[in-house]
């Protein structure tokens, strides 16, 4: 028995109560699988038991499965937002509501965002409504170069957000790191080497070096870093600094590095590619915001990708950036291809840079950010090309569960749709 729905905004507004994982087939849509390939027109996506079964043309819909007519829509995997503060903050400038940094804590590397994440924060809902289905959540450094441990989350409308706690450690090794380390990059490297050495001691001896500089918890937290079991996200921008960071592996060969920022990465792209270390960067950094970003250009991503570097688009560059604007960053990379002398991305590459590539860096290769058999059933149905600024999600599914898209903003919109207060004030409209 088939159910047919028209995917319209009107229909969308009726859907507010999430239900359990649905088996769902969408036909006739333009499908982008997230794997770097071009979009496929008139394609089918099948999700069963919360997992993707198949996506593409020539895909058969299992008998009896509810089918949505996807005509005129685009269907993609959900966006994977890297380097976010989702669930750590309600209002940035209201410090009581902001758990990004712990400047007065005696702990650093041991800090773990997982128990602090609040999936009910409005930004979770806003991002979900923007098509973001999974993310990395990252602590901010404020009194030490080690910021602590980040987590991988899904953006489902429940309290079970964290899918991998302690997924990575974060360390600042550029200008900001220099400031935190005591005023110079020299101290950054001394501090990193000492910290990793103490962790190695802890790992090999099975005991804390009480004469060391690290607290027991911080030393313990760096053990999986130095043994390569936990990724080390390193914020670094300057070309020379990037090479110095990569050289850390001469002394600590098991480090599983990810470069964050890498504004001047294009200048040393071949070395980054040879190292196999992936990069997460903002796509549109093009100003010499600091002396470690003098060579900033929007072509950074494209040039690194051309050199063979694995590059995800993520993070916040300016005050207005939010996870839901990642498609705008990616779309600009496509626009760049039409600027002589610039290096952009193809549509497929750009979309992969906000889906499968960051998911892979986040430890979910083949399992998220891609419409491939066995992957999480994270689907976004868009009203148009998802990289186009005028497009938005119509419906969002995470693990096959349709998600509510209403939130504080949508409620305000509806309340003030009219300014008529002839009968009662707006406070009574809800």
């Amino acid at each position, binding site marked *: 028995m088939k159910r047919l729905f028209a995917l319209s905004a009107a229909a969308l507004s009726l859907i507010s109560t999430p239900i359990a994982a649905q088996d769902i087939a969408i036909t006739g849509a333009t499908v982008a699988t997230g794997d770097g390939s071009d979009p496929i027109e008139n394609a089918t996506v099948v999700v069963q038991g919360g997992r993707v079964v198949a996506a593409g043309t020539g895909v058969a819909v299992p008998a009896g499965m509810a089918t949505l007519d996807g005509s005129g829509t685009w269907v993609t995997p959900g966006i994977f937002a890297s380097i976010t503060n989702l669930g750590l903050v309600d209002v940035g*400038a209201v410090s009581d509501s902001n758990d990004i940094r712990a400047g007065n804590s005696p702990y650093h590397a041991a800090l773990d965002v997982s128990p602090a994440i609040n999936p009910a924060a409005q930004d979770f809902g806003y991002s979900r409504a923007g098509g973001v289905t999974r993310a990395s959540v990252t602590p901010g450094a404020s009194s030490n170069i080690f910021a602590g441990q980040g987590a991988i989350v899904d953006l489902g409308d429940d309290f079970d957000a964290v899918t991998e706690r302690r997924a990575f450690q974060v360390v600042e090794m550029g200008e900001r790191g220099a400031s935190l380390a005591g005023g110079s990059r020299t101290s950054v490297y001394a501090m990193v080497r000492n910290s990793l050495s103490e962790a190695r001691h802890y790992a090999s001896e099975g005991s804390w070096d009480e004469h060391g500089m690290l607290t027991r918890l911080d030393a313990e937290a760096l053990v999986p870093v130095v043994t390569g079991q936990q990724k080390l996200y390193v914020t670094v921008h300057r070309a020379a600094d990037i090479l110095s960071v990569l050289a850390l592996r001469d002394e600590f060969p098991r480090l599983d590095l990810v470069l964050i920022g890498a504004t001047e990465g294009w200048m040393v792209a071949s070395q980054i590619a040879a190292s196999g270390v992936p990069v997460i960067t903002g796509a549109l950094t093009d*100003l010499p915001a600091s*002396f470690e970003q003098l060579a900033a250009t929007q072509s950074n991503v494209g040039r690194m990708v051309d050199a063979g570097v694995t590059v995800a688009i993520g993070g916040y*560059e300016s005050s207005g950036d939010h996870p839901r604007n990642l498609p705008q960053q990616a779309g600009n990379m496509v626009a760049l291809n039409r600027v002589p*002398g610039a290096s952009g991305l193809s549509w497929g590459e750009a979309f992969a840079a906000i889906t499968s590539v960051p998911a892979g860096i986040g430890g979910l290769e083949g399992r998220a950010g891609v419409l491939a058999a066995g992957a999480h059933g994270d689907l976004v149905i868009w009203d148009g090309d998802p990289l186009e600024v005028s497009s938005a999600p119509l419906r969002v599914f995470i693990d096959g569960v349709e998600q509510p898209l209403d939130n504080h903003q949508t409620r305000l919109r509806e309340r*003030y749709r009219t300014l008529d207060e002839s009968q009662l004030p707006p406070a009574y409209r809800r």
Partner: protein
Amino acid sequence: MDRQFLKGGPAAAFVTIASLALASCTTASGGSSMESASASAADTSGSEDSPYASTYERYPGVPTALVGAVIYDGAGGRIDNGTVLFADGEVVAIGGADLAIPDGYTQIDGTGRYVTPGIIDIHSHLGNYPTPSVSAHADGNEATSPTTPEVWAEHSVWPQDPGFSRAMANGGITSLQILPGSANLMGGRTVTLKNVPSRTVQGMKFPGAPYSMKMACGENPKRVYGGRGRMPSTRMGNFAVNRETWLQAQEYAAEDNPDRDLAMETLAGVLAGEILIQNHCYRADEMALVMDMADEFGYQVAAFHHAVESYKIADLLRENEVCSAVWADWYGFKMEAYDAIPENAAMIHNAGACVVIHSDDENGIQRLNQEAAKAQADGRRMGIEIADADVISWITLNAARAMGIDDMTGSLEAGKMADVVLWNGDPLSIYSRPEMVWIDGALMYDMNIPMMRPVSDFELGQPGEGDVK
């Protein structure tokens, strides 16, 4: 860090990627019947009453005919397969394919391309918070007194800010207003610039543009001064200090031949209608109070900037003829931005009030066209249809009106400055970029000619000099 807070906008609480130390801070079609803000504005181009006068003169250009493009004229008009003629620095005519092209015009094929007026950012800190964003460059807030009407933003502008060229090449920006920051209730005079590379700020000053004065409501002034144990420390303190200052200004303005007083000269200029008010203000209730304060003392607010709650009082804003200069979708970085919604611009427009899309950001200024497109689409999804040509006015003529320069630029009308952008596609699409930019009829940027990409002194000899950026 205070920097962005005080600029007015937000700060992404976090950061990493761009060294981000950033904390967050931070009109006309719309069916508006608003009169030009420039009605009685004073000329700033050089008399003894106008020190630091503009020395800008247009660069050479050739009579040019843009042929075959879609034209958005900035005033709500659209012409498909249109023609734009400009010569001697001015728009000569716009029309359809049948518009006769006089002899001697260089024709540029605009097939598949779009033409708009030069994009205008009503809220920028290029030059007074330039990159590199080092503290030695932080010249936007004279945060030593809650009222500093005596300071002039132009005395802080560093013309070598690399951000000016990015704004032109990526954003098609031809005019912009540089404001003091928002630490102070009365932050000082703004300056309106032509986005031309120059050795001096005088060489950028927009000839004939009126001054504005920056004011700020809400969190920033009370935080900055309350944190020092002085007035204002509350919103009521904000108003008390403002009102006391306006009373002084009224007394000063009533005097015959008063002694010179830089602060009072600015305020008296506001009361005389010669200097406009650009008022940083987020919350609806505060905007309503500010409009009453303006009535109390006899001045007009040209625009509320960062007005994230304008949608709640769009009717009042329409009645008071005050523009709202807004982001498309910034929210949440500070308490007074908590109720920001992405439909704000469309809802203001739909109520018949004036919308301007602004940046307050050295990155955002490179994409005002995209921000406008987002705001348009968010309106469409709630049932508010706004024509593309009207949306373009949010970043052209409406901005010009609120800055008092709409009789000179902001739309493609015969006799206006030939500030023109040729886009390589629909400017409301993510996939389009400026291809050529003219300022007063002079070609200042050409995507296809590397030497037509200006490079600031700061970037000479640095890695990536002259890169596409």
